[in-house]
């Protein structure tokens, strides 16, 4: 039985808890652009505080930005005003470069912004503060090139392991820094690993995550492993990380997954951020939310969420629809 604070708070709740990965839809509430969010912890705090006031969220999160860690490793980043940054080029192209790759420290580059955000978010009372970081394989993939990384797992596994080992050392320290900063947990995003086979995911992701998190998780700090590309076939390999909280995207049949995991494993997800949150009306949004609420009603170990990070062009009114549906559901039903 997992007795972490996060598990206890979900377990003890009589309501269906909700945790959409929502920072960017709140840009208008702080009169901010994406570029402001990813460089300024106060803006992140302002947005989360505004969303918390609007929706009475139990969870507040730092922004999902899968470029800050790679940037700290020396990768080139493309920034734009209203787009989440992306990595360009390849920092490592061969084993020699992999061996010479320096490991940054938590706080280097923009990684400090996310640590500061978490410290600030602790000022909001009675919430679960969740930081965010990338996972080891996804980070390594950004360093060597994502397409290249996938091929290299088959053609040059030693090169991949060399880079992933360094990523893991950094991420272990980064998680500790989030813990010190006051986070109750971290959402670790490992989407690239969902493109691997289950065996590949074990070898190049889960084995590392298990080692990174083994000595960090405790009663007051949990890691929520996010993998928006993972399918049900990947579930055993992902559970082998030994973690207790997992966040999935649309490719996962979440009902089937909930039927297969034990009751002390908590699953989060998985309304499609693009096709549902961005491309539907508010009423359609409520309908889709209600469908998922109804189909997961019998599972206490489920937190309803978006399948991934909500993009900047997700209308706030759709987020209104989502939370409205959850609130109405909770006014009628209890989770027992």
């Amino acid at each position, binding site marked *: 039985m997992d007795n972490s604070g996060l598990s206890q708070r979900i377990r003890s709740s009589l309501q269906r808890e909700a945790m959409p990965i929502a920072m960017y839809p709140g840009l208008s509430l702080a009169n901010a652009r994406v570029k402001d969010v990813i460089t300024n912890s106060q803006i992140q705090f302002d947005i989360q505080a505004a969303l918390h006031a609007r929706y009475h969220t139990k969870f507040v999160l730092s922004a999902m930005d899968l470029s800050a860690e790679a940037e700290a490793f020396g990768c080139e980043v493309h920034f734009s005003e*209203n787009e989440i940054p992306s990595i360009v080029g390849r920092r490592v192209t061969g084993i020699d470069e992999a061996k010479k790759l320096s490991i940054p420290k938590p706080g280097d580059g923009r990684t400090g912004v996310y640590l500061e955000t978490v410290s600030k978010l602790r000022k909001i009372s009675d919430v679960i503060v969740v930081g965010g970081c990338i996972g080891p394989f996804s980070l390594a993939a950004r360093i060597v090139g*994502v*397409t290249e990384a996938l091929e290299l797992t088959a053609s040059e596994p030693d090169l991949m392991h060399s880079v992933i080992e360094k990523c893991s050392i950094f991420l272990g320290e980064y998680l500790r820094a989030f813990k010190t900063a006051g986070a109750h947990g971290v959402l670790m995003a490992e989407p690239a690993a969902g493109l*691997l086979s289950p065996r590949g995911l074990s070898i190049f992701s889960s084995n590392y995550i298990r080692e990174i998190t083994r000595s960090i998780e405790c009663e007051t700090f949990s890691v929520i492993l996010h993998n928006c590309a993972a399918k049900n076939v990947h579930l055993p390999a992902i559970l082998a990380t030994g973690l207790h909280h997992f966040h999935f995207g649309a490719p996962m049949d979440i009902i089937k997954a909930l039927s297969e995991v034990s009751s002390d494993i908590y699953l989060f997800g998985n309304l499609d951020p*693009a096709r549902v949150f961005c*491309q539907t009306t508010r009423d359609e949004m409520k309908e889709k939310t209600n469908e998922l609420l109804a189909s997961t009603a019998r599972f206490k170990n489920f937190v309803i969420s978006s399948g991934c990070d909500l993009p900047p062009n997700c209308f706030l009114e759709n987020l209104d629809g989502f939370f409205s549906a959850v609130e109405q559901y909770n006014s009628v039903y209890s989770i027992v």
Partner: protein
Amino acid sequence: MRDLHALYDAVLNGDSKNAKAITGEAIEEGIDPMILVTQHMVPAMAEVGRRFECNEFFVPELLIAARAMKASLELIRPLIANSGIQPAGKVAIGTVQGDLHDIGKNLVAAMLEGGGYEIVDLGVNVPPEKFISAVRDNKANLVAMSALLTTTMPSMKKTIDAIKEAGVRDRVKILIGGAPISQRYADEIGADGYCDSAAKVCKMAAQVLAE
């Protein structure tokens, strides 16, 4: 001469070195290169696609199989060009303007090349003019556009509208794909097809070209 089934196995298993070696030997033996392509390599890629759909193969297996096919095709292509045999189609492929993500585009390009299509890879962040130029100057008869972000999806409509304005819409079929894309969106913007999986793209390409 090795059993040519070994060529099928080499492509299926992503063994570029062997695929190239067997192809080279077969060519020296005087085997018709089109037999190598149609009876061994294309069926191997079709099996790769089937296994991908069944969750037996995943993206890495797809990529290394496509690379093995490409290694063999490098030996065969000059022979086919000289023989006058045409590729299945000519595809101008790119990630749309504003978007730098290339993995979906790379996968689809690999599968289409494996399926006998000639590829004009325009890269990422591709403005409409480059797609138009590929249709007009490179004589592409298929345009394949990828977008990974909801904010760059509108570039797909912008590109289709620009292709219409340039007066070349009737010369080309347009396929779109990417994580936020749907059939509904493809219908809305006037694309000829939407593909939700790289493994299905060759079949989709053949279908739209036949329409």
